[in-house]
């Protein structure tokens, strides 16, 4: 099992407390994702963006949340046997959790390096698989936490603060 943490410098001191604490969100959305379901992939992230828009979140943070979520959603669709998204909304942030049914990543550090990809031909033909998914998530979130067990599952969570 391997674990990876990333926090934008301004949020470094908040990461453990924020991720581990269990305050009750204002509301929660749940989504299911199917293996290689490229017809529906992206719908969950679009709904998350709509929810944030309805909450009055500034477009800068909407965009960051939508991109981070979309990349993670595509990763589940392209690489896993299926998975789930839970989006938790708080007054100052959104906390989005992605978990899938494997096969997981052997080496997270390698997977996050720009340009690294294990995508197959079908996925590449659709314009994915450039190895920029995880780097793009890092760029668009404030806190990222990944736990992966090779052969079993990947758990990924992001937090985006609204300012």
């Amino acid at each position, binding site marked *: 099992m391997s674990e990876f943490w990333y926090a934008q410098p301004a949020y470094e001191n908040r990461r453990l407390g924020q991720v581990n604490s269990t305050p009750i969100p204002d509301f929660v959305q749940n989504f299911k994702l199917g293996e290689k379901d*490229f017809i529906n992939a992206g719908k969950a992230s679009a709904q998350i963006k709509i929810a944030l828009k309805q909450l009055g979140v500034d477009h800068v943070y909407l965009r960051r949340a939508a991109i981070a979520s979309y990349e993670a959603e595509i990763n589940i669709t392209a690489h896993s046997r299926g998975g789930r998204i839970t989006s938790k909304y708080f007054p100052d942030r959104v906390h989005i959790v992605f978990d899938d049914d494997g096969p997981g990543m052997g080496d997270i550090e390698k997977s996050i390096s720009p340009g690294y990809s294990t995508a197959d031909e079908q996925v590449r033909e659709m314009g994915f698989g450039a190895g920029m998914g995880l780097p*793009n998530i890092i760029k668009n979130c404030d806190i990222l936490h990944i736990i992966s067990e090779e052969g079993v599952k990947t758990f990924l969570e992001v937090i985006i603060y609204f300012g």
Partner: protein
Amino acid sequence: MKLKEIVELLEADLLFEDVDKEKEITCAFGSDLISDILMCTKESTLLLTGLTNPQIIRLSDMIDLFGIVFVRGKVPPKEIIDMAKERKLPLISTKFTLYRSSGILFNSGLRSCKI
């Protein structure tokens, strides 16, 4: 630059008519890689691409697109055109390559989007 001017310059077809042809397009970006498109478009932009799968339309739910120009003579299937209609997202198809299309629009004054 207006949408209708782009259609003329690229000798292109609008894939459905119910769009605002007078719409002002301020910048453009071209790529066949979805992550690059997400990473490089920080403002509303026209997208030039050779990708014709449903995810190219889904992208417009995440980022602001003025419309999509399909290059190299590509025309997406009907269900993708329907997805764009629902979103009122103009679709244009040109036989020109990505390089040539970009060059024509750039030389005519359409700037690159901020990245």
